[in-house]
């Protein structure tokens, strides 16, 4: 969680407790997410229509 508070842009990784970022001048790497994000809004909406679950559409500028 400490990583998360210092690097808000890596929130997705922090959500999962899976960020292996290095703070400071060193590289940030291995941002691994257990959430399986789609990258197509229309596909997401179609899945929402089929499953009854709503879409969470996340607009981000953080590294993917």
């Amino acid at each position, binding site marked *: 969680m400490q990583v998360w508070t210092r690097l808000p842009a890596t929130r997705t990784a922090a959500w999962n407790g899976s960020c292996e970022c290095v703070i400071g001048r060193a590289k940030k790497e291995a941002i691994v997410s257990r959430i399986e994000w789609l*990258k197509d809004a229309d596909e997401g909406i179609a899945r929402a*229509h089929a499953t009854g*679950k*709503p*879409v969470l559409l*996340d*607009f981000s*500028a953080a590294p993917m």
Partner: protein
Amino acid sequence: MKVVSEHFVPVKIHVKEQPAVFERFKAQWTPTQLILDGDGIEHHRIEGFLPKEDFIAELELGLGKLAFEQKRYEDAANMFRVVCDEHAGAGAAPEACYWAGVSNYKGGNHESLKETARLLKERYGDSAWARKASVWTT
């Protein structure tokens, strides 16, 4: 994050990869999250970074709004109540308490507005939602 995987179809759009999608949904800033139904209609918008508890509370508030707008008032009241009671320190809590009262009212509990106004005054007396609810005490 469990709440995302269990309750949503998650879609991530990167500003540099898909700028047209930002335009389409009128996203002005990152991070922004929208909750859409299966017809692509927006029911809730979260703009800007939030700490984890606040963010989860906002997601649950959004699920409540979706249920409310679909006229599933009992479901909506339960979802709003979770935010109101279990995330009482989150920024979304006063709004959730307000809409829990409205959902209960729409579900047939005509005392719920007064009760909600009292609760909001007690817990969040300085909030805009307490002021909105103040009319229900008269």
